[in-house]
């Protein structure tokens, strides 16, 4: 039914354009005709806008996967994801190293960012006075306004020295008996820890703002009921407020995770770009996004390498689309 109407709208295009001509250049157009005409043209214009947007997005997604197709055909999708060798000369591509780099970096980022973000969100919505909260909130939103490339050079020129000379030796000497805390490369501060620290600062405002909204939307009655039963403030937050806000907080974490995975500029500068799977949190690695950025400039005109790099992008994109679906499911959006 709807489709038929839409088809009619498109057929109307010819009619309307001739009517537009008649209205503006014809001699005695009726007022009511004019109104109906405007109404129909507005309808058509908005419909065309929507079609254009839908076309752009579908073309964009299709373009990425279509350009990546040759590499999936020649390497096999599974093989492409689970093998290690990446060689332009031999035309062999496997991206396990890059996937591992991205995943490890994202996990470390979340371990650092999630607790601080959630505690800050609790502070802003439950503990601070409205006045204090509204003083702090703009500053947290300010963090969003710092471009990722700026975080990149900040990490590179300011934090790298501190990490190399102070944080990593201390961490290694305290926790070095656990294999993942060995300082594998003492001459450099670059690595998962540095990249994840900077990423944690970048995703902090995202997670905090969305979780705070979720916590705020828990109704006051629930809190009062819990408090009147003798629970103290923390017990109320822990047992009543957080469970009620959990789907919102999960959405916030997923969105933060997507931002961390898709980040490019800062990671190119900070992860160390060494083609190994990081063996310790201080070891260097190579993320999917950095591989694309570093190599695409030299290889975009060659069929095979281009397909391989688009293959990385396609895998990354597919993961992100999956997370979008998850966050929509959690958010319960329509």
């Amino acid at each position, binding site marked *: 039914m709807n489709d038929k109407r839409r088809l009619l709208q498109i057929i109307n295009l010819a009619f309307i354009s001739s009517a537009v001509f008649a209205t503006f250049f014809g001699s005695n157009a009726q007022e009511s005709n004019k109104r109906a005409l405007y109404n129909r043209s507005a309808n058509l214009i*908005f419909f065309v806008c929507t079609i254009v947007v839908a076309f752009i997005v579908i073309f964009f997604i299709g373009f990425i996967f279509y350009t990546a197709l040759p590499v999936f055909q020649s390497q096999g999708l599974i093989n492409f994801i689970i093998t290690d060798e990446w060689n332009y000369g031999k035309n062999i591509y496997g991206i396990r190293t890059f996937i591992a780099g991205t995943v490890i970096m994202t996990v470390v980022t979340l371990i650092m960012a999630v607790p601080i973000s959630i505690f800050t969100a609790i502070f802003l919505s439950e503990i601070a006075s409205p006045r204090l909260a509204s003083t702090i909130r703009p500053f947290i939103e300010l963090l969003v306004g710092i471009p990722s490339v700026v975080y990149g050079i*900040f990490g590179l020129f300011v934090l790298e020295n501190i990490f190399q000379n102070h944080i990593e030796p201390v961490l290694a000497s305290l926790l070095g008996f656990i294999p993942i805390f060995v300082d594998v490369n003492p001459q450099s501060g670059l690595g998962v820890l540095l990249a994840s620290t900077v990423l944690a600062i970048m995703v902090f405002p995202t997670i905090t703002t969305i979780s705070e909204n979720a916590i705020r939307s828990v109704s006051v009655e629930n809190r009062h009921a819990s408090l009147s039963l003798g629970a103290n403030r923390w017990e109320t937050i822990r047992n009543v407020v957080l469970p009620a806000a959990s789907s919102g907080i999960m959405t916030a974490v997923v*969105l933060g995770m997507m931002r961390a995975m898709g980040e490019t500029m800062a990671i190119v500068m900070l992860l160390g770009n060494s083609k190994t799977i990081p063996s310790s949190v201080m070891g260097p690695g190579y993320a999917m996004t950095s591989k694309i950025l570093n190599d695409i400039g030299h290889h975009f005109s060659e069929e095979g390498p281009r397909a391989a790099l688009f293959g990385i992008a396609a895998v990354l994109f597919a993961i*992100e689309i999956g997370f979008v679906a998850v966050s929509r499911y959690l958010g319960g959006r329509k």
Partner: protein
Amino acid sequence: MNHRKAKESFYIFLCYFSAVLATLALFGILGKIALEALPSLNLEFLLTPENEAEGFGGGIANAIVGTILLSLLSTIFASPIAVGTAIYMQRYAKNARLVKSFSFIIDVLSGTPSIVLGIFGLMFLVYYMRFITGGFSLISGAIALTILILPVIERSAEEAIKSVPAELEDASYALGATKWETISKITLPNATTGIVTGIVLSIGRAAEESAVVVLTAGYSQFMPEFGVAAKESMLFGIRISPLQNLVASLPITVYHSFEFPSMVSPSEGFAAAFVLIVIVMVINAITRLIVWRRRIG
């Protein structure tokens, strides 16, 4: 009892601690960037394009102008389409499943990693369409950024339109107004502040983007110039400046301090970063002002 109290104070202390840590980190970062930027930051640095300064680096006027051109142009491209789409989705579309899948598409677009959009721009706009866009150019960058900010404007416009009270529209229909008259005279005026907020936010979003811009707009040491010149390889045999020319932008200047440390010193990178942050902050402040005025009015 005591144990419960101790636990409460411990966690509440943790909350305070997190908030203080976050605020300190922000001031630390901004302060350090300003401090590092200070040696290079002077009027001459801001007003000289890179090609007129001695040696490499030394000026960012070209990048400032480029950033402004890129973000304004992409916002001009994106706004009408995005707002039109938002109106259609909120007031015309009836098929619930179609609306749902369309909103999923918009979510996917807004979650797209910028590098994926960047290589799309590089292959499609810069490489395949080079006879129209002129390869790495202002127009390629602006179109790629348009796709980046479409969902930002679309989402906020949809929210703004959704928040217009149904009673107002019903009253308009009851007076015999057509759908277009209701939307243009009732819905849109009531949703203006929300829509404008989204548009202004998206200018900032476009200004700070780097991965997309480095792969589509390239970099030029020269100020964008205006004019038309003959160029055989292009469509219609002409090259329209600055649209089809390479263009510089601040995020790329910042990136150069990492990529070519011998050409752009860290301090100059930080100075460019500082200017970029100030631009984005001013834009955010404008958004805040719009929201604040709406709350009062």
